[in-house]
């Protein structure tokens, strides 16, 4: 990992007041429990096994700070999506960032929000391209992106009031 990416990682770590010890690469078996109860923090992942390098989980409140760090380091926004963890009664928003140069480094930022009141601040002020991705995530999961200028259905019909990728969605 090059200098830039090290500094990004350090900056992201500094976001967490109580630095959590870096968890070792979780084995695939006991990852099951860990995934459910994972604490916020920065994880380093094996690119060959997972396809990304840095895995950050944080509270929605810290999202903007983290995204600004990533933006300052010159990352581009790959995509935004959601995952419905219905067993934990949580919705997860996943932000993918990557670099244009040869210091290949993919950063994944995750944040979780309760299923009943899914609310996450928008990052479209930092990355205007997030506008569409957030609208899409709102379409599919119903996550409200606070401060989004135009949060209307993009891929679903204008009058859609359903969120098809929720695990309890019945067509």
């Amino acid at each position: 990992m090059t200098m830039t990416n090290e500094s990004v990682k350090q900056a992201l770590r500094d976001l967490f007041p109580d630095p959590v010890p870096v968890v070792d690469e979780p084995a695939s078996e006991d990852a099951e429990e860990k995934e459910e109860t994972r604490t916020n923090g920065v994880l380093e992942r094996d690119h060959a096994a997972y396809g990304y390098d840095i895995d950050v989980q944080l509270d929605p409140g810290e999202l903007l700070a983290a995204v600004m760090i990533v933006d300052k380091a010159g990352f581009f926004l790959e995509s935004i999506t959601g995952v419905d963890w219905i067993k934990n009664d949580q919705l997860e928003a996943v932000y993918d960032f990557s670099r244009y140069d040869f210091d290949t480094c993919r950063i994944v930022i995750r944040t979780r929000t309760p299923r009943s009141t899914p609310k996450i601040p928008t990052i479209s002020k930092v990355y205007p391209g997030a506008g569409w991705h957030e609208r899409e995530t709102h379409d599919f999961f119903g996550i409200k992106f606070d401060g989004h200028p135009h949060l209307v259905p993009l891929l679903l019909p204008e009058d859609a009031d359903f969120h098809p990728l929720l695990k309890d969605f019945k067509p």
Partner: protein
Amino acid sequence: MSGPIHIQPGETFTLNVGPQHPATHGVLRVKMEMDGEYIVKAETVLGYIHRMHELMGENRTYPQVLPNLSRLDYLGALGYTHGHVLVIERAAGIEVPERAEYIRAITVELNRIASHLFWFGAFVMDLGGFTPLMYAIEDREYILDILEAVTGSRLTYCYYRFGGLYNDVDDDFISATRAFIPRMRKQLKKYDALVTGNIIFRKRLDGIGIIPAEMCRKYGATGPVSRGAGIDFDVRKNEPYSVYSEFDFDTPVYHECDSLARYKVRMDEMEQSLRIIEQGLDKLPDGPIMPKKKPKLIKPPKGDYYQAVETARGSFGIRLVSDGSKNAYRFKLRSPTYSNMSLFDEACEGMLIMDALAMMGSLDLVIPEIDR
């Protein structure tokens, strides 16, 4: 609805470009706020051909999703299926025989040329020249014939399997592909003379439709769009997957940021793809095309996996969240044109409609791939 339109000076009007419009090449709609021929504001409306492939990916077993990926992008289908099999192989830890990877690379590059050829024709047609499309289709037919003889279909291929390929290539494929390379080089020269050098064509693209590098980064544009803005980014080079690290090829980069730069990137990419095919055919090893040990039922261990590949349109990514069952828990498709198109709204402000539509053509849109 009575009487003709009355437009006061300085008043803007709304123009619906699409969903049925010749320039959008599909069911894309752009709501344009127009001041005469100038665009004041544009808003892209998507979803006319949305099919929810991501939900299908969750409902079906892993092998059943295979045909879906080729329906994303009907012009460069193999690139997308390549990404799909790669992410499942990464997740489930399946080893791929070398021969299979080489054949994958060769066929993906052939498909990339076919896709770029069709884009070339359609782009010149956007500018009003119809004949290059026919020439491009003629060459593309040649590729489709080669691919049809191997894969069994012409457009929506379902050729790659988890761990390898559906069936092996034969000598006919190799000889036909070898014959294709010099022919394509000759044709590229012809296109250069017929289109690239043409004064009318250059006047319409040179310095028009500027998409600067910073805008690319903010919107996540990849592929020829970002390479036309001077960004040296190609997943095949930056994050080598499959056997691309074995090949010697260049990433064409132009710094002009205009429509002509994006055009040139794609035309140069065809040449680079030819080089990859050439090397691939030379290096093609013997051996099996499917691994000896392959799990009967594919059940990737629990986890979150990501794989990016360079398709004809840019960086295509798949995020697979597996819960260890035979279906995916989450199957996110990051389509390149989605990000490339999202910057159109901002980039086209203040442009003439005909320049804006030329710029839209230079983004190489495939609507089913945006809408998924």
